[in-house]
């Protein structure tokens, strides 16, 4: 629960803060690379907040803080950039008369999966072997972010819930963080138990 809570807080704060930072600071960067620099900065700010919040919930000594936060920052920056490109390409390829739920769902889930691949791969590099359970860490991020991104956009677009609409960015981040955190916890929990079992070498890295 601690891990899921940290993920929800990290994603929610990240989405909110990045909106403010990008809106205020990154506009001069807009003409560069057709806006991709701004997207990269947006993702980096989100990743910084995710990494910071999740580091607090990681088992003590599992990773070094700066390394975990830096890799999450880079993973989210690359992930959001890829998600933006993939999302735009799919949006222009899918028939606009198709149901919003289906067409939009495919776009958001695929984009979310791209984001999850970025964050998951970057965190996988620094996460101790016992905790990441082979490639399961990356898979959990892809699945969690894909479903979370789709669910978040679906809830915000299709349901008229005033409190979510008035807190759009934090709501989006919280829903996405809930899915990603839950998916990661499915890998982290058995991995942690294995790491703590007698005979395991703690903090081992590849």
């Amino acid at each position: 629960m601690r891990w899921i809570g940290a993920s929800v807080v990290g994603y929610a704060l990240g989405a909110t803060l990045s909106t403010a930072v990008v809106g205020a600071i990154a506009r001069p960067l807009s003409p560069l690379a057709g806006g991709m620099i701004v997207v990269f900065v947006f993702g980096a700010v989100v990743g910084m907040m995710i990494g910071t919040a999740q580091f607090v919930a990681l088992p003590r000594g599992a990773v070094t803080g700066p390394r975990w936060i830096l890799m999450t920052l880079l993973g989210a920056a690359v992930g959001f950039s890829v998600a933006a490109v993939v999302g735009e390409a799919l949006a222009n390829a899918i028939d606009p008369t198709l149901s919003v739920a289906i067409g939009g769902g495919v776009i958001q889930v695929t984009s979310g999966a791209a984001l999850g691949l970025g964050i998951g791969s970057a965190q996988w590099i620094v996460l101790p072997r016992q905790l990441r359970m082979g490639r399961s860490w990356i898979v959990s991020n892809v699945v969690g972010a894909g479903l979370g991104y789709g669910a978040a956009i679906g809830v915000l677009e299709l349901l008229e819930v005033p409190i979510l609409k008035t807190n759009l960015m934090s709501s989006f981040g919280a829903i996405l963080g809930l899915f990603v955190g839950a998916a990661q916890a499915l890998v982290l929990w058995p991995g942690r138990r294995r790491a703590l079992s007698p005979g395991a070498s703690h903090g081992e890295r590849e």
Partner: protein
Amino acid sequence: MAGRFIGLAIAVLMCVGCGIRASSDPSASASSRGTAVNLGPACTATDQDQYVYRPVRLRVIMPCVHLTGTVVTSSAEADGDIHLDVRLDASYEGLLNPGNLQAGGSLVVEPVCRFPPVQAEAIRVCASDPDPYADALPAVGEHVWLEGRYVLDLQHHAWAELHPLYRWGIVDR
């Protein structure tokens, strides 16, 4: 360090929404126009149509129209746009189609890229706009003139929209 960062974030958040509010109709009074669908005075498009994501979902009917109506609702969307429902004045009701019944019989008006979107296909498009339309938007209940691109949204019942909104002002009484 953390305190400074939070302070900066709060200051930035407080500035969101700052802008100059348009206050008068540059054209003649709304009541001086009165045919079935009176499109008002000449209307000049801005560059905002370049920053509409997924352009294939919108069928452009007219590049720029001028109309008047009353704002009924206003809400933020995950694609970075603001969604205004506008009850058109009688002389402009011919711009509506059966799809607009899904929007409560209102014309949908969308100023684009009002804030960084979270919807993936809109992120880069909005990010590439160096000069987004940042003026304050009309409040619910205000009687306003609006200028924007007149389109049908194929993704949403092909209802009629002004998308994007180019400019607006209060209708002189």
